[in-house]
């Protein structure tokens, strides 16, 4: 038989549970407890408001360049919801919603965007890694973290995130290949928001989907509506359960959209149309979830909504206060370089201290020092 179709075993699916009108597919509904639904709603909304606040503060110069996550709240939040406290959550930089769910503090999160190392300090008891800037690099240590669970005989799982752009990096492929080869308990979530700064998804990869890349690694892939919190939870739950049972990694492609600029340094008008952005507005994850809770589930009354709003605004205000009362330590750069600072680092710290405390030398006219030959 010289030529035949190559049969590649694979499971590739598409999934959505909650449509843009807030209607749920009854067969797929994960049937979450009301209390959980309201908590998820609170975090999603808080993410939206905090994101707005950060944009505002960037414009006022109170934080630095900011990368908004508007429109991308459902995916990281849904994934985080399916994790246990002792699981690992490895974000890139647009996964704020899940960070808040996992217990990250608003004040500390703002420190990161405000230019302070302490913004990367993870709260005690939270098994997460800080924001990762070099695109897709986090996939590699996420795989290592997942691998460690397996090597240690733990049943913990690691969920990692990157963007559609990230899937072009060697790091993404290498990490998934390792994860598949070692059957590591990893859930790789790609937030496909249509753009990598100015590059549209169809110029990022010639493949029809990102989910299908799973086939090449010999793992399962699934494409979900990333703006549908319930769909995300269904898909992530299965992937997490499978990983926990030793079934190896899953690739989840979440289709979403970056509603705002790439970062505050970016001007999206240069590369995408207003119409395209407008067309995504009806698919917004927050309004969809709100409709579902208010109209379908009827658990989000005006009164509840008001209570939630007051609470999340207070928490944000408190976070901003904590951020803004942060006292800059000018020597912070020397700390945590090594367990024990090197002699040279100590010397350099002393050099800086001398400069900051004593400033320039006094201005008495400088006498030329003796020349070397005069000195001997």
């Amino acid at each position: 038989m010289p030529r035949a179709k190559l049969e590649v075993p694979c499971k590739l699916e598409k999934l959505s549970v909650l449509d843009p009108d807030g209607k749920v597919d009854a067969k797929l509904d994960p049937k979450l407890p009301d209390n959980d639904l309201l908590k998820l709603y609170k975090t999603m909304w808080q993410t939206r408001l905090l994101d707005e606040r950060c944009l505002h503060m960037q414009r006022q110069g109170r934080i630095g360049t900011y990368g908004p996550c508007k429109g991308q709240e459902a995916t990281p939040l849904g994934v985080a919801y399916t994790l246990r406290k002792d699981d690992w959550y490895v974000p890139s930089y647009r996964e704020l919603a899940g960070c808040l769910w996992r217990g990250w503090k608003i004040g500390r999160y703002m420190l990161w965007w405000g230019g302070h190392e302490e913004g990367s300090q993870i709260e005690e008891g939270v098994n997460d890694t800080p924001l990762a800037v070099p695109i897709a690099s986090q996939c590699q240590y996420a795989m290592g973290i997942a691998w460690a669970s397996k090597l240690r005989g733990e049943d913990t799982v690691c969920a990692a995130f990157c963007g559609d752009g990230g899937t072009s990096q060697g790091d993404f492929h290498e990490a998934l290949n390792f994860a598949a080869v070692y059957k590591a308990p990893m859930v790789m979530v790609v937030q496909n928001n249509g753009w990598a700064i100015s590059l549209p998804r169809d110029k990022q990869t010639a493949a029809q989907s990102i989910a299908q890349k799973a086939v090449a690694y010999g793992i399962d892939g699934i494409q979900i509506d990333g703006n549908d919190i319930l769909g995300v939870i269904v898909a992530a739950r299965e992937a997490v359960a499978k990983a926990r049972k030793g079934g190896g990694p899953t690739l989840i492609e979440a289709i979403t959209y970056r509603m705002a600029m790439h970062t505050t340094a970016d001007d999206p008008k240069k590369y995408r149309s207003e119409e395209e952005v407008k067309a995504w507005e009806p698919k917004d994850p927050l309004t969809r979830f709100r409709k579902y809770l208010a109209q379908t589930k009827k658990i989000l009354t005006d009164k509840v909504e008001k209570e939630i709003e007051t609470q999340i605004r207070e928490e944000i205000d408190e976070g901003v206060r904590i951020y803004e009362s942060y006292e800059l330590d000018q020597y912070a750069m020397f700390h945590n370089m090594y367990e024990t600072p090197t002699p040279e680092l100590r010397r350099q710290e002393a050099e800086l201290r001398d400069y900051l405390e004593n400033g320039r030398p006094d201005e008495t006219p400088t006498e030329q020092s003796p020349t070397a030959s005069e000195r001997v």
Partner: protein
Amino acid sequence: MPQMTMVEALNKALFELMAEDKNVLVMGEDVGQDEGVFRVTARLLKEFGPDRCIDTPLAEAAIVGTAVGLAIRGFRPVCEMQFDGFSYQAFHHTEGHMRRFRNRTRGRYTVPMVLRMPYGGGIRAIEHHSEAPEATYAHLGGLKVVMPSGPRNARALLRAAILDPDPVVFMEPKAAYRAFREEVPDEPETLPIGKGQVAREGKDVTLITYAAMVRPTLEAAEELEDDYGIDAEVLDLLSVSPMDTDLINASIRKTGRAVVVHEAPRHCGVGGEIIARIVEDSLMYLEAPIKRVTGYDTIIPFFANERTWMPDVGKVVKAAVETVRF
């Protein structure tokens, strides 16, 4: 002559060379439709089309790795790394192929490409966007490492880099991208790669620097004259590999004193090499130990502490006065 920022001057050099030689290609992330995140590649897509101004997928290793192949086939790729900190993602190609092909094929294949990157700190950017990796590249034989300091020399050096028969790492100081304008002549001009310039003449002490540190160093020289009566000479190296040893030694033999200024960390930094060359060639002319004003041997801090970390006018003044008063 028109007044230009460094961004505009670099764009001018790219535009001119793409017009002159169809083998010149510009490739990188967001260089086409978006015209580069700093707009250095403005108008290139419109003028030369998507086969010559190429928006690549997000993969630095592929950008540099494929450019090596394009260069072997006679193209002159000018690759943009979106930021200095991401040039490391392409490092195995820069080190393993880009710099080696001439040598390993005994001259049969050459790689006349340019690896451009925004360089250094000073723009309040997030992590990995303010790196100063010149020593890492200067350590690799086969590469030239060029560090312009102003619009006019940036334009002339980029032109020289693209015309150069060998691979050039071209580091563009972000802090100088739009900080000031200079007259840039209409007609093409080049500067020889490997030659520095005397940016200010003086007789008491030589301040040796390059890239974004040239401006604060010149400011320090003014202050040294006004407030301390010290007449400082300032050298702008423009290239750290090759390095203009003759320029450095000639100045040292005149002043007998030196301070080296760069924003990159001190340990194994370019400053160490500069001092070694002075010691090798002009030890007997020295009147005082040479000082270094550099970034510290830490991870380049988040931007709240960036200015504290970087050399500034006061640190240069202090080091120069101490050197002269030694």
